[in-house]
């Protein structure tokens, strides 16, 4: 068959299957990410069907997918929200970082993947999926709940932590010497700070430069500048993803809002390709050997997120059920864990099992997270019922 025809047929078939998977995910009310990963595993190297025709397109698309994921993450919060979030919830954020980075990093060291592997796996287990968490909060009608700002501010902190972590990760993965690495990290942290300050003071200029009433022009402006910034950042060894993320932060106000709306379908498309490609590059046969570790890590880091949420909500004066809800909502890991693992795999300096472990881990957490958030409430109230009856008794007596 002609190469072009083959590519189109393969791509079409894959997208169609993703559509079916997405519909299935929607029907049972779960995040589509694990299904996309499974789809990739099914098609990919060592999977049932081999797809070589779409390789080139898929590779570039998945890079764009990462850029768009990070750009949208940056767009989600304004610089002011990031700064107040940092000021208000840094204690919870630091606890979150320590408790959830260590299990992944520790396991990586134990499995002999060295410091680089520890750096990667720590990131994978640290970052909650803000996408899944936001969807869970909306779907369960918990936006007006009192613990919701607590959850959101932890997500905001993780957001900022990503801005610092990604350059460090890129430097580590590039295998540069300690001094050069320090320099790169220093430069990128300086850039992060400058961007935050610029976004706070002059965010409207950036927004104005990109904004257009014509949605076509606006889309091209956005996409063009995102790829440009990402490319330049990548050339400076700062990681394309960080560049896009910073651009997202710099865009603010109404422009950020309309940018989100306009980019959403594109992000969904390219991110889906990214998840599939990640699955494609993972050999399904490599998953069963690491499944036990993935399960252990899942249990451990579900617990640590629970502790984080519980503590943060308690500090905010939230009652017992709300504390459990906070922890459970943070459990889900998803898109950004895969982004981190994807960066590591692309650099080729980490063990192949790492991709398998990250895949298995995210598969578990993206499914368990929303379920935990949903069922923690009836569970807690069931456990509390005997207690409450006693309490009501005493109030009635008084």
């Amino acid at each position: 068959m002609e190469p072009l025809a083959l590519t189109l047929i393969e791509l079409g078939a894959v997208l169609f299957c993703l559509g079916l998977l997405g519909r299935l995910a929607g029907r049972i009310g779960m995040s589509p990410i694990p299904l996309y990963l499974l789809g990739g595993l099914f098609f990919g190297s060592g999977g049932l069907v081999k797809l070589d025709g779409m390789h080139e397109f898929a590779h570039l698309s998945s890079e764009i997918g990462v850029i768009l994921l990070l750009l949208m993450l940056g767009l989600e919060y304004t610089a002011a929200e990031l700064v107040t979030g940092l000021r208000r919830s840094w204690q919870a954020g630091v606890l979150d970082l320590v408790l959830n980075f260590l299990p992944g990093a520790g396991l990586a060291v134990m499995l002999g993947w060295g410091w680089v592997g520890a750096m990667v796996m720590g990131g994978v287990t640290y970052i909650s999926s803000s996408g899944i968490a936001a969807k869970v909060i909306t779907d369960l009608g918990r936006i007006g709940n009192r613990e919701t700002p607590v959850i959101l501010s932890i997500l905001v902190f993780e957001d900022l932590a990503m801005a610092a972590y990604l350059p460090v990760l890129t430097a580590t993965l590039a295998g540069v010497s300690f001094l050069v690495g320090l320099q790169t990290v220093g430069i990128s942290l300086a850039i992060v700070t400058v961007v935050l300050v610029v976004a706070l003071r002059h965010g409207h200029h950036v927004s104005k430069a990109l904004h257009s009433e014509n949605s076509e022009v606006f889309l091209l402006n956005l996409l063009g500048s995102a790829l440009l910034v990402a490319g330049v950042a990548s050339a400076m060894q700062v990681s394309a993803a960080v560049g896009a993320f910073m651009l997202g932060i710099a865009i603010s106000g109404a422009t950020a809002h309309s940018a989100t709306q306009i980019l959403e379908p594109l992000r969904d498309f390219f991110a889906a390709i990214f998840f599939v490609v990640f699955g494609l590059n993972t050999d399904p046969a490599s998953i069963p050997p690491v499944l036990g570790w993935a399960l252990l890590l899942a249990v451990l880091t579900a617990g640590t997120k629970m502790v984080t949420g519980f503590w943060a909500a308690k500090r905010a004066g939230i009652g017992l059920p709300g504390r459990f809800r906070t922890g459970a909502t943070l459990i889900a890991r998803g898109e950004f864990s895969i982004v981190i693992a994807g960066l590591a795999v692309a650099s080729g300096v980490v063990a192949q099992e790492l991709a398998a472990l990250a895949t298995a881990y995210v598969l578990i957490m993206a499914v368990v997270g929303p379920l935990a958030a949903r069922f923690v409430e009836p569970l807690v109230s069931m456990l509390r019922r005997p207690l409450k009856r006693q309490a009501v008794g005493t109030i009635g007596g008084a």
Partner: protein
Amino acid sequence: MNVDETDLPGLGRRKDFMTGSGRRVGVVEYREGQIELIVSTWDDPDTCQASIPLTADEAATLCNLLGGQRLAMQLSEAHREVPGIVTRQFSIGADSPFDNQPMGKACIRTRSGVSIVAIMREGEVLPSPGPDVILHPGDLLVAVGTQEGLDSAAGILRHG
């Protein structure tokens, strides 16, 4: 009244307050401009029992309904300066003898010296109702008078 305002990063803003009965009531304003009415559950003020999306029209209507109630409160505020004068509200139950009867039949002013200054019905206010206004179950009568007069008016409305 102490209204709490809380930022919801990435979503918008929540404004709410605690009612005397221990429930949290308020609104969530989204960045996109939608508004949602939130009411907490009775046993856990942190959770929402309901979050109801409202259009601009619906929000305005709800505002009116609550505004009617405000009228009665403002009236009693105005009478506070006059010693001995009190404002009270009476609701017409389905078992009231004057249900579906003209208000004049109760002869409230003659018998108790109390004036009915307004009737609130389905969120609307009927100011200075005449004696031929038909009372319906669910009507809220705003009455002004002395403490004793109001007590006897309450008795008249309940028992005839």
